[in-house]
């Protein structure tokens, strides 16, 4: 019978091992095909993390086989129904010391490689370039500090539509459902890139499993991490820290290109009049937020001392690229001075009521409805008033433009995030919907003038 129970224990262990081994065998290179296990990823950090994970996983597995094995043997051999008589021993100093010391040795053996890995990971010194990543409810802003431009990256419209309650759209029919954005972050391969991560509102966390982990985005503080992507490809991650209503809907997409292709993309962006250039096919984006250029020269930041967190002591300002009109100044490579004004980018010079309302409705749904509600009824609890009978929406248009551009309290300053045409359209929409009938059509030029 003793033999039999040992066999049972062995069988259970083999079964468990098979389950784990299937997971390991299916070990995926990237999240795209990860089902059971952590992806190995494509950065030096992600390889290190993966090997620490597998090491500690297997150590736990074998300890489990031994400990559970002993328990299972005891439960079979010492059953009362088999007539087992209970012994009455109740202490053994030798055993107590043994099973204190042996785990300590195992833990030290695991702690050493983990600590070494951690030290390696935390060395963000001597990067070849820096990108500032700012979390917003509910999108990411990527700021190319050396090249002096930034853009917002939010959930792709196809996923957005399918993820609405009772949308009737099968998520499986949407390519990369909840893993696609309008403007992916584009990075060169083979270069050490420092990521400076912060937030404009609540805490977010920038998680890219293929790069080996996540870093929290804390408002008012800048966290630092680094990546060095080894091979070109499209990598997908998501916000990992609960950040409110659309937390599950702010994915991260990074497109890694060879340094030459990357440089070509940067050049194309700089020549694109504030339009985003698709990293997939080089086409120009007609909708969505613009690429904004800025004057600040961040090259001096390259020598910033390393450290995990750099408290600034003051809130990080909303996107540095504030004034579009100043954009072109100091951008030697920027041949087109108009690139500074996102207004000119995608929109007609003049809106008529019908097209402005249609566009405005779309902009409203994407940007405003989360707080002001899809029916414009507002949510006073979070400081988002209703539009019906609102003094702003029914008052002078200048005040309305001012509020949208500059924000107030919980209302963000949309001037940095939307172009003039979109702002004009959404204001027209707000003044002529939800029971308001002002009848005026706001023009992109009005917005540009108010900036």
């Amino acid at each position, binding site marked *: 019978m003793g033999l039999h129970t040992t066999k049972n224990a062995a069988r259970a262990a083999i079964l468990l091992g098979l389950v784990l081994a299937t997971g390991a065998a299916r070990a995926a290179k990237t999240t795209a095909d990860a089902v059971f296990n952590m992806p190995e990823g494509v950065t030096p950090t992600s390889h290190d993390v993966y090997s620490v994970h597998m090491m500690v996983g297997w150590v736990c597995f074998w300890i489990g086989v031994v400990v559970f094995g002993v328990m299972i043997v005891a439960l079979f051999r*010492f059953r009362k129904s088999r007539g087992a008589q209970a012994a009455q021993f109740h202490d053994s100093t030798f055993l107590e010391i043994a099973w204190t010391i042996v785990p300590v040795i195992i833990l030290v053996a695991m702690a050493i490689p983990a600590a070494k890995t951690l030290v390696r990971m935390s060395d963000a010194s001597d990067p070849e370039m820096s990108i500032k990543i700012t979390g917003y409810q509910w999108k990411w802003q990527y700021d190319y500090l050396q090249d002096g431009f930034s853009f917002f990256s939010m959930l792709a419209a196809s996923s957005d539509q399918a993820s609405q309650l009772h949308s009737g759209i099968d998520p499986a029919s949407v390519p990369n459902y909840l893993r696609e954005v309008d403007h992916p972050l584009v990075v060169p391969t083979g270069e050490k890139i420092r990521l400076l991560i912060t937030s404009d509102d609540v805490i977010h966390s920038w998680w890219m499993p293929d790069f080996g982990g996540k870093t929290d985005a804390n408002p008012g503080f800048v966290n630092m991490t680094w990546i060095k992507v080894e091979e070109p490809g499209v990598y997908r991650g998501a916000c990992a820290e609960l950040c409110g209503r659309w937390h599950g809907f702010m994915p991260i997409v990074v497109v890694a290109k060879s340094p030459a292709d990357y440089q070509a993309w940067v050049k194309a962006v700089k020549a694109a009049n504030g339009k985003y250039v698709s990293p997939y096919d080089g086409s120009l984006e007609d909708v969505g937020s613009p690429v904004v250029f800025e004057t600040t020269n961040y090259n001096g930041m390259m020598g910033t001392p390393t450290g995990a967190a750099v408290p600034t002591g003051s809130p990080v300002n909303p996107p540095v690229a504030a004034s579009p009109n100043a954009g072109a100044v100091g951008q030697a490579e920027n041949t087109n001075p108009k690139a500074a004004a996102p207004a000119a980018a995608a929109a007609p010079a003049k809106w008529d009521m019908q097209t402005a309302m249609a566009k405005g409705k779309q902009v409203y749904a994407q940007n405003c409805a989360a707080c002001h509600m899809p029916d414009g009824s507002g949510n006073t609890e979070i400081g988002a008033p209703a539009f019906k009978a609102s003094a702003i929406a029914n008052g002078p248009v200048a005040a309305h433009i001012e509020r949208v551009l500059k924000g107030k309290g919980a209302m963000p300053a949309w001037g940095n995030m939307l172009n003039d045409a979109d702002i004009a359209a959404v204001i027209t929409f707000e003044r002529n919907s939800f029971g308001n009938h002002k009848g005026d059509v706001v023009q992109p030029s009005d917005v540009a003038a108010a900036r």
Partner: protein
Amino acid sequence: MSAVTLDHDNHGEHHPSGLWRWVTTTNHKDIGTLYLLFSLLMFFIGGSFAMVIRAELFKPGMQFVDPVMFNQLTTMHALVMIFGAIMPAFVGLANWMIPIMIGAPDMALPRMNNWSFWILPFAFTLLLGTLLMPGGGPAGGWTMYPPLMLQTGTAFPFVIFAVHMMGISSVMGAINIVVTILNLRAPKMTLLKMPLFVWSWFITAYLLIAVMPVLAGAVTMLLTDKYFGTSFFSAAGGGDPVMYQHIFWFFGHPEVYIMILPAFGIVSEIIPTFSRKPLFGYESMVYAVASIAFLSFIVWAHHMFTVGMPLAGELFFMFTTMLIAVPTGVKVFNWTATLWRGSISFETPMLFALAFLFLFTIGGFSGVMCAMVPADFQYQDSYFVVAHFHYVLVTGAAFAIMGAVYYWLPKWTGHMYNEKLGKLHFWCSTIFVNVLFFPQHFLGLAGMPRRIPDYPVQFTDLNMLSSIGGFLFGASQLLFLWVVISTIRGGAKAPAKPWDGAKGLEWHLPSPPPHHSWTTPPDAEVWTHPYRD
């Protein structure tokens, strides 16, 4: 029940009857019963939230609730389960069993005992009521991190006040337990002769007294940040949102052990009984609980490895966290040694204790994995962590509580429960809880963040499996409800000592025990050591 009635008649005391009896009671057994029934109710309320969560996560796309409602449900599920189900269940067990196990007539501070219970229904009415308020209930997670928590609507101050009330209730309950244990032990029962359930609660009570005020402080700072212009957690005014996390987890980590140490105590009672063998390594078990309690104060930042800590901080918290595996391992090894060469039988309480032994250990393994900072950069805020803490809290804490209920239900009610149904409940729970939570390890490793109402299609299969496990685990608990209610209402008469291998003072009183449990302290001859003859 006639024994009880007879007993108070003999004392010639006047006791109100009906509902008023329960409102005014100062009897430790009545209050224990109230705590346990309250916790059972909260278990089903928190569980129903979990059912909606698992239904929404059954397949990708939004089917039932909007994301804000989903966030409210995850937040409320945690608050209700932690503060409403697990903690009151342990306090209820302490109220019922500690006086009986140490030979006391009642708790030391009976009126405070009454008050500490009766705060809870008000606290939870307030908390659950926020779901109906404009803007909805709290949706920022049970950890209530600012700045997100500050975006809560009308519900905000009500949630804070409810948390304050729960804290006051816990601290009063804990003080009562400490005072009872220190003052009302039977003659010659030295501290190192107390049963392990009493020991584990003794240490837990100190943890509660130490950390509940820290939570109260943290949420009060949230309150003043929102309404009184302070900037504790806002960088704009010189504060730091991460400071909240440090303060919260200085409470939060000991809180985790508040929810597991009494479970250790319960398992240490059940395993020797059904192995018919003394608990192995009694003293090292006590020291292990004490070391875990001490370590719980110096590991808090392992909940926030990705927050941007200096390297030295990450290393320190990694090493201290790994150290916890040592005393926890000692406990698991001692339980295993207790089983070894015993004479083991598998009644329902023993089945739950054994499931605890296996499944809590799995939660311990994933805990060691999470302690490894580099790997935690991937695990943090993913479903791997969700799987980890549910193994510790459901198959750990909740399974121990269910084991304790089956173990002592004959003592409390004077009736035997239906063993067949008890075993059915056990097997359903144990199988389905693994179907529910084991796949979540894989989901987290493959990249699924926690607290999301919708997910990419690659996670569909494992989520469906997990949801099916969830529904069946939830349904299995109705069986538990049925067994408990039917045992209260009747059943075979339970002897004073229904378990032949049981040791300890509680088995020297009739089932159910008389109104004032031990009116005279038990003789030292009745017992020598909690686990030995």
